[in-house]
C-alpha cells in the first residue's frame, strides 16, 4: 500500500519535472526582467557595470516631477498617451457597430468578402503599414497625384510630416488596421445568438431596427464590456511600434506616447535609469488599472475578466 502511495507521489512529481524547464524559461524571460527595476535606483551609465555605478535612491523619480524640462516633456507625453488611448476608448463601440451592420447584409458572399478583406490589414506589421502609408502619401504618392490631377492642390502636401491632427491620423491608421479584426469577435457572438429569438420577434412584427436594438445589441453588451475593461487596463500601454515607425523630426512632439518616450529616453539619449524609473511607474499603474477594471467587472457583471 505504502509503495503504491509513494509511486503515485513520484508520478505527480515527475510530471512537474517535465514542465520544469519551461517554468525556468518563464522565470528568466518574464520574471527576471523585473529585477531590472533596480537600475532605476542607480546612476547607470552603460559601459560600466551596475556594481560600479552610484546608488542614488529615488533621485530619478524625484526628477520626473521636479526637473522643469522633464516635467514639460512628460506632460506632453501624457497628453499624447491620453489623447490616443482616449480616442480608442471613445470609439471602442465601432467594431460592434461594424459587426451588427455587416450582419444585416443578406448576401453571404458579399459578407464573407468584406470580412476577409477588412481583416487583412491586421496581419501585416506596423512597418508594412507605414511603408504603405508612405507609398500612398509621399510627395509623389497616390494622394498627391490624385489631388493635383483634380486641381485641388498645386504643390504636393507632405502628409506624413504634418504636425496637424497627428492624434487623429494615428487613430485612423490604428482603426484601419484593427477594425475588421476586432469585429470578428462580435460577428462570432452574433452567430451564437439563438435564432428562435429573432423568429419570435419577427412573428411579433418587430422592425429590423427594433430587432437590432432589443435583441442583437443587448446580446453583444457582455462581450463589449469585457473588451472595454481590457481597454481601460491598457490605457497607458499603446505599444511603441506604431508610433516608432511613424515618428519623424516634425511630428515627434505629438506622437510620443509613454511607451515610445521610455524607449527614446534610453536608446536615444542614453538615460537608462530615468527610463526604467518611468516604465516602472507605468507598470505599477497599469497593474492597478487592471485590478480596477477587474473589480468593476466583478461589481457590475459578477464575473472576473482575468
Amino acid at each position, binding site marked *: 500500500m505504502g509503495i503504491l502511495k509513494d509511486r503515485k507521489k513520484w508520478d505527480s512529481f515527475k*510530471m512537474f519535472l*517535465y*514542465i520544469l524547464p*519551461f*517554468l525556468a*524559461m*518563464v522565470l*528568466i*524571460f*518574464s520574471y527576471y*526582467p*523585473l*529585477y*531590472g*527595476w533596480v*537600475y532605476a535606483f542607480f546612476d547607470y551609465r552603460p559601459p560600466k557595470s551596475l556594481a560600479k555605478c552610484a546608488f542614488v535612491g529615488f533621485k530619478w523619480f524625484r526628477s520626473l516631477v521636479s526637473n522643469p524640462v522633464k516635467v514639460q516633456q512628460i506632460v506632453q507625453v501624457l497628453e499624447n498617451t491620453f489623447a490616443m488611448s482616449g480616442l480608442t476608448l471613445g470609439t471602442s463601440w465601432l467594431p460592434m457597430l461594424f459587426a451588427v451592420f*455587416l450582419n444585416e447584409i443578406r448576401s453571404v458572399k*458579399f459578407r464573407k*468578402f*468584406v470580412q476577409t*478583406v*477588412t481583416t*487583412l490589414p491586421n*496581419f501585416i*506589421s*506596423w*512597418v*508594412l503599414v*507605414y*511603408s*504603405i502609408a*508612405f*507609398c*500612398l502619401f*509621399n*510627395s*509623389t*504618392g*497616390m494622394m498627391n*497625384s490624385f489631388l493635383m490631377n483634380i486641381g485641388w492642390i498645386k504643390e504636393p502636401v507632405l502628409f506624413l510630416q504634418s504636425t496637424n491632427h497627428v492624434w487623429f491620423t494615428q487613430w485612423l491608421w490604428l482603426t*484601419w488596421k484593427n*477594425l*475588421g479584426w476586432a469585429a470578428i*469577435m462580435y460577428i462570432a457572438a452574433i452567430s451564437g445568438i439563438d435564432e428562435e429569438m429573432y423568429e419570435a420577434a419577427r412573428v411579433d412584427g418587430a422592425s429590423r431596427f427594433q430587432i437590432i436594438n432589443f435583441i442583437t445589441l443587448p446580446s453583444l453588451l457582455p*462581450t463589449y464590456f469585457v473588451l472595454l475593461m481590457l481597454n481601460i487596463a491598457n490605457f497607458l*500601454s499603446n505599444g511603441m*511600434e506604431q508610433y*516608432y*515607425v511613424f515618428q*519623424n523630426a516634425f511630428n515627434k512632439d505629438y506622437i510620443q506616447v509613454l*511607451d515610445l518616450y*521610455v*524607449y527614446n529616453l*534610453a536608446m536615444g539619449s542614453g538615460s*537608462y535609469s530615468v*527610463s*526604467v524609473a518611468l*516604465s*516602472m511607474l507605468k*507598470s505599477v499603474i497599469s497593474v492597478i488599472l487592471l485590478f480596477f477594471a477587474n473589480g468593476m467587472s466583478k461589481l457590475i457583471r459578477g464575473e472576473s475578466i482575468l
Partner: protein
Amino acid sequence: MICYIIFTICAVLCVYPFYYVFINTISANDLSARGKILFWPQGIHFHNYVSALRVDGLALAAEVSVARTVIGTVLTVSVAAFLGYMFTQENMWHRKLWYRMIVATMYFNAGIIPWYLTMRNLHLTNNFWGYILPAVVSPFYIILTKTFVESIPKALPEAAQLDGASVLQIFTRIMLPVMQPILATVAIFSAVGQWNAFQDTLLLMTDTKLYSLQFILYQYLNQASSLSSMANNSSSSSLANAVATTQTATSIRMTITIIVVIPIMLVYPIFQRYFVKGIMIGAVKG
C-alpha cells in the same frame, strides 16, 4: 442599400493600398515616379523584382526571417502542445500554481528597457536565439491548447492509461493527433507574429547579419524619407539628381514591401479557417 455602400467603401479602403503598391512595382518606373499609375498597371515589366533581389542584405534578411519563422513556430507550437496537455494532468504536483505563474505573465510587464538589459545579460543580443527563446513559452497559446484538451472526451486517454501507457506516451501517440486543429491555429498565429516582429530586432540586434526583412524594410523607408525631405528643402537646380535617386529608392521600397507582404497573403486563406475558432476559444479561457 446604404450598408452595401459603406461596406464596399470599407473593402476598397482595405484592398486598394495593397493594389496600388503592387501595380506600381510592375509598371514603368518613370510613369510610376510621376504618379501616373493609379488604377491599372502600364508598361508592365518585372525588373524591379529582379533588381530588388540584388539589394544589399535583402537575401540574408530573408533567410533570417524565414529561419526565425520556421524555428520559432516549431518550438512555440511544440511547447504549447506539451504544456497545454500537461496542465490538464490533475495530479501534477502544484499544477494550479505553475499554471497561474505562466498565465500571470500576460498581465504584467517589466518594460522594454529592463527586458533589453536582461537579454543583454543573457548574451542574447546579437544572437539569433534572441528571436526565438523569449517567445517559446507563450501563455496565450497555452491557454488555447489547454482549453482544447479539456474539451476532448476523457475516455480516450483513460483507455490508454489502463493499457499501461505513460503520460508521455499518451501525449505523443494519442493527444498530439487529436490536437491538430488547435495546433494549426497556434502555428499560424505564431508564424505571423515571428514574420512581422520588428521591435526585437530594433532592441537586440546591431549586427547587420541578423537583421530581419521587416527591419531592412524600415531602414530603406528611412533612407528614402531623408532623401525626399532633402530634395524638398534644397534649391531647384540641385534637385534633379536627388529626385532621380529618390525615385529608384521608391520603386525598390515598393517592391520590398510587396515581397514582405506576399507570405502573409499566401497563408491568409488557410489562416482564415482557423483564427475565428482560435479567438473564440481564447474568449472562454479558463
